[in-house]
């Protein structure tokens, strides 16, 4: 261990010891089969782990996850075998938050590695949030800085300003998101996105979130585009040990208004067995990605979680 790494470890240990409650840990192991309309079947495995400590003022969370998929030949040649469809991803995150009265501050650093279509790329990010909470009203500012080394990626600097207040069963969140991009292909862009998000929490095991806004993007060359981003997500527990979540998002470019960049998923999961701190789940997920060309994929697997 280098001196710098040792110092970082000592700082994290000291922060952990500052928190009042003991550490909480969770881990999820998953394995399953994916059938993608374009690339055929593949085996997927994932592992996630997190440890956190939540004190009266200070909270620290460390999270890591890894995912790998291996492409398989399609039975009866239903789809062309494409070994480059195999891939892997790893991601790590450190979050530190501090709460004092109505003030809440959060700082996070993350990093990831990705192997996709035979190419390795990495990403790194820093983000923060300063929030002030009144009884049923809060306001926050969240700056972020991110870098993605993939061909389509680049450097992003952003700032999200958001208010949040409760009205009946709704949490309403007017927001303004500003971003500046310096892409790896040399182009630059600036984006402004005012919007309104709302979450509905009725008295039944169901919750819905909806977000709509206006997106205006300028390139360094002076060109401007605009559109209306929309997203909807739903979470429910229709029966004991049965969980449903679904989400959809799309962009309606102006002035045409025709939906583009659409993506959606529907996931039904069943808690097959569970004892204190352990649970075995069977998730079934249907995904649609209309980004470049429309493609569907189906995932069925098993997830074992320890908490």
């Amino acid at each position, binding site marked *: 261990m280098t001196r710098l790494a040792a110092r970082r470890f000592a700082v994290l240990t000291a922060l952990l010891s500052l928190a009042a409650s003991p550490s*909480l840990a*969770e881990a*999820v192991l998953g394995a399953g089969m994916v059938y993608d309309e374009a690339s055929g079947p593949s085996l997927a495995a994932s592992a*996630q782990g*997190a440890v956190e400590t*939540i004190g*009266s*003022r200070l*909270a620290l*969370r460390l999270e890591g996850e890894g995912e790998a998929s291996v492409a398989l030949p399609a039975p009866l040649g239903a789809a062309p075998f494409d070994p480059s469809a195999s891939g892997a991803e790893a991601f790590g995150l450190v*979050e530190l938050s501090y*709460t004092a*009265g*109505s003030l*809440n501050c959060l700082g996070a650093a993350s990093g990831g590695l990705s192997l996709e279509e035979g190419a390795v790329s990495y990403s790194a990010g820093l983000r923060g949030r300063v*929030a002030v*909470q009144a*009884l*049923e009203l*809060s306001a926050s500012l969240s700056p972020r800085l991110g870098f993605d080394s993939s061909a389509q990626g680049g450097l992003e600097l952003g700032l999200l300003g958001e208010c*949040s*207040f*409760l009205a009946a*069963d709704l*949490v309403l*969140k007017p927001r303004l998101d500003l971003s500046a991009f310096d892409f790896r292909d040399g182009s630059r862009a600036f984006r402004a996105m005012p919007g309104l998000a709302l*979450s*509905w*929490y*009725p*008295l*039944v*095991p*169901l*919750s819905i979130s909806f977000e709509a806004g206006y997106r205006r993007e300028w390139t360094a060359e002076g060109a401007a585009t605009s559109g209306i981003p929309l997203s909807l997500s739903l*979470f*429910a*527990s229709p029966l*004991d040990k049965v*969980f*449903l*979540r679904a*989400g959809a998002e799309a962009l309606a470019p102006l002035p045409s208004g025709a939906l583009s960049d659409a993506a959606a*998923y529907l*996931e039904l*999961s069943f808690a097959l067995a569970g004892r*204190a*701190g352990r*649970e075995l*789940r069977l998730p079934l*997920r249907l*995904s649609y990605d209309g980004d470049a060309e429309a493609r569907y994929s189906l995932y069925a697997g098993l*997830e074992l*979680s320890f*908490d």
Partner: protein
Amino acid sequence: MSLLRARLLLVPLLLAAASLAAGQGTRDWFERDPEAAAYAGIRSGVEALSLRAQGEGLPESLLLRRLVEGAAKRAEPERLLLALSEETERLVALKKALGGRGLLPRDPAKAEGILAEGSVILRAGVGLPLLLSAVDASQSGGAGPDASAARAYAALGAAISVNARFPLGEAAFRALALALAGSSLPEGRFGAFVAVFARGRASGLAADRIAEVSVAVLDAGGSLDRVEKELERRMRKP
């Protein structure tokens, strides 16, 4: 907690029954109600319980309500007598505990309502010590003497509803109820936690973990939107 869960589904029904006003006594009921004939064998036992309740300063209508409920369900007489006996002891203990803390309103109708609803919470499997801790938490959170019992019941009722669909460990159940009671949230927001738990569970979080995060936010003075943000950070991506 399985016995507790089995009883939870009855809570809304029992709360509704508890709010019914009853103007007659058990003696009147035995003499006038056609359903009373089947219960003639336990009449002396019921009247003895009624006398004990009145001796402790409890309104007779509280016991009568359970008697009418039991008869409507055609409960076996001996089982009904046992249930009434347990109800009497519950109400006596509750009245002493709340009255001793000066938390029973002077208005007899309001006091009767507090006792009846408290009895429903206790019958749902919540122990008197936890109920009293929730009352203390309500007061610590700023509820006045007249409002603290009702706020504690609302917090316990919300935790019971969550636990009925998303079973919690004993410690998490207790922590959630106390955090709600002592929080800055208005009581009307407590019911939203069933939806909060549905969101977290559908996203792969364990029920106890959702409770821990919610408790941490509520204890720090946070509101529903902070709970949402904290859970979103931990949800598994689809």
